[in-house]
């Protein structure tokens, strides 16, 4: 589909007006600050959105893949079982101020959840009706390593529009046709001028150079091929607590468990780091200790996913680096694998 690339600008003070108008027509999700935590929430007024964040605590994956989601309801009687589908999201949605790493995670999740024999309709249904408005990173954190994984602080992958903070204004870049249609709803937006676009270009270059964290993922997948039984995992897993901080905050981790609750079939987030994740009905657990679970997380992200989809299953957002209770740093783990000498 061909569309004309449009550049618009909006004064920062007018952004709440735009968000308010959007909220009249769409379900709008945006970062909201509550005490110390910034996370994506449904908002109804422009001033509820908080854009002064470096990155949100949780990734926006929960908008498409909620932590608890009813898949269907049922009513069992002696004779039969009555099933009822869960109501689907009908309205159109917009997610505002998604950082480039998180927007890229949607592209990876789309591949993962829509390929092969089975499509995750619950995820895809929500994705289909949702426009993504990104927010470029002028100041990446020291824990950000998106550039090592094919992303960039001004990356547009997975977005329909991209907001770029150029001091007193946001430059709005249209990325897709859907983005273009969205922007057409605001005829009062001014066209960007050449200096605005040049300013954004400069900021983008600065942000790229300001990336402190670089992780070499080249050859990691191949090395992991030979490492399944390596003593490396015994070392690396020692301090891991097997909690779910890394996987739950991760924008790409999307494993889940399914359970029945009072007439509802529910799916909830699950984590490969939990011992029950692989506990079988017989009582056998093929991943009995932290070693196997840690290996699974690294293998899935940097080997299995690469084989199946041609990319790493990590976008370098750095959340797991920042929030790991024991400072087990995935950058170090991947770094240690990449610098290993071949046999």
């Amino acid at each position, binding site marked *: 589909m061909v569309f004309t690339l449009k550049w618009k600008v909006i004064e920062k003070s007018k952004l709440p007006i735009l968000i308010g108008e959007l909220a009249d027509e769409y379900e709008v999700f945006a970062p909201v600050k509550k005490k110390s935590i910034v996370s994506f929430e449904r908002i109804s007024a422009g001033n509820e959105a908080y854009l002064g964040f470096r990155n949100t605590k949780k990734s926006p994956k929960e908008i498409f893949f909620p932590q608890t989601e009813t898949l269907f309801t049922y009513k069992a009687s002696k004779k039969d079982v009555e099933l009822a589908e869960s109501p689907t999201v009908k309205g159109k949605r917009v997610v505002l101020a998604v950082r480039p790493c998180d927007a890229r995670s949607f592209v990876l999740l789309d591949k993962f959840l829509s390929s092969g024999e089975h499509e995750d309709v619950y995820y895809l249904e929500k994705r289909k009706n949702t426009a993504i408005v990104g927010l470029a990173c002028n100041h990446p954190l020291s824990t950000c390593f998106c550039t090592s994984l094919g992303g960039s602080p001004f990356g547009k992958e997975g977005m329909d529009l991209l907001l770029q903070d150029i001091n007193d204004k946001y430059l709005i870049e249209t990325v897709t046709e859907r983005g273009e249609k969205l922007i057409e709803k605001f005829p009062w937006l001014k066209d960007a001028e050449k200096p605005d676009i040049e300013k954004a270009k400069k900021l983008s270059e600065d942000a790229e150079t300001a990336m402190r964290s670089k992780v070499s993922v080249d050859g990691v997948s191949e090395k992991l091929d030979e490492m399944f039984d390596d003593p490396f995992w015994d070392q690396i897993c020692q301090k891991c607590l097997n909690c779910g901080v890394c996987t739950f905050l991760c924008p790409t981790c999307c494993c889940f468990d399914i359970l029945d609750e009072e007439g509802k079939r529910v799916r909830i*987030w699950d984590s490969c780091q939990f011992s029950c994740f692989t506990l079988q009905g017989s009582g056998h657990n093929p991943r009995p200790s932290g070693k196997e679970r840690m290996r699974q997380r690294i293998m899935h992200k940097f080997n299995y996913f690469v084989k199946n989809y041609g990319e790493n299953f990590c976008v370098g957002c750095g959340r797991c680096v920042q929030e790991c209770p024991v400072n087990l*740093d995935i950058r170090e783990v991947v770094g240690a694998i990449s610098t290993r000498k071949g046999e």
Partner: protein
Amino acid sequence: MENIENSIREVAEKLLSEKKVDLIIGYERGTLPLRTTPCFVDKVEDVQKLVWNASCDANLSKYVVGRKEKVGVVAKGCDARLIAVCAVEKQFPRENVVIMGVPCLGVIDRKKIEAKLEGKEVLEAVVEDEQIKVKGESFELVLPKNDFLCDSCLTCKHRNPPIHDVLVGEKVPEITEANEFAEVSSLESKSVEERWKHFEEELSKCIRCYACRNVCPLCYCKMCFVDQSMPAWFGKTNDLSDTMIYHIVRAFHVAGRCVDCGACSRACPMDINLRELMKKTEKIMKERYGYEAGLSLEEVPPLGEFKMEDPQEFIK
């Protein structure tokens, strides 16, 4: 600090070379400013990795529980107390563990620094005596250390490990005047509705990652009640009622055992003040049984035994 660090290394070297232990569990430099990370040393040449500073916040007793080999473990007051609790509960043979007690002046709460900096990132930090010098992109600040310590450290009454095999460094003065139950008392003075609302607000942030449970040395159950599926006693969703029941039951399970090391609050990625609920159980244990956990290797925790003189006013 450097002296203590050197002493820790010396003690570790001695323990390893004399084959008194197979492994030393301590701290090493972390990958981020103001962070350390647990470190496992089994070779004498690696003892140089060990560090000691105000960011040694992980509770290393977690790594002692369930171990078969002989270990030496660096332990602050709270860590040593939890080793004692777990030893009484027979989670490892006491003689397998050499407690390298380190008198502690409190550990830094990174979240307090983050809140102070309002989104600015610390890129470098140096802690010198009473000051934390932090540096970031276009800012430099000197912060008074005592304003940025973990809440649990501010009222800690056992900064010197009450139980230890080796004491590394000089004893430090204990805090005597601080009221460790001030927060609990202020919560108690509120109405039931207000308290419920408060807990609802705090716990609605929970993402059920179980960092609080997994970081806790007392949560060593092979199968946690919340993980049981045949039958599933408790809901695993993040609906508020499921989440609250998880936290309430966990608080019951650690009642009379918790020493308020603060690890649960520090580990929580959603900044839930988990200590609050635990602190209340601690207060009850103190008031009803005059008991403080982790001060003895002989005493059985009050909730683990029955005595005729136990308060039992509930029997009418």
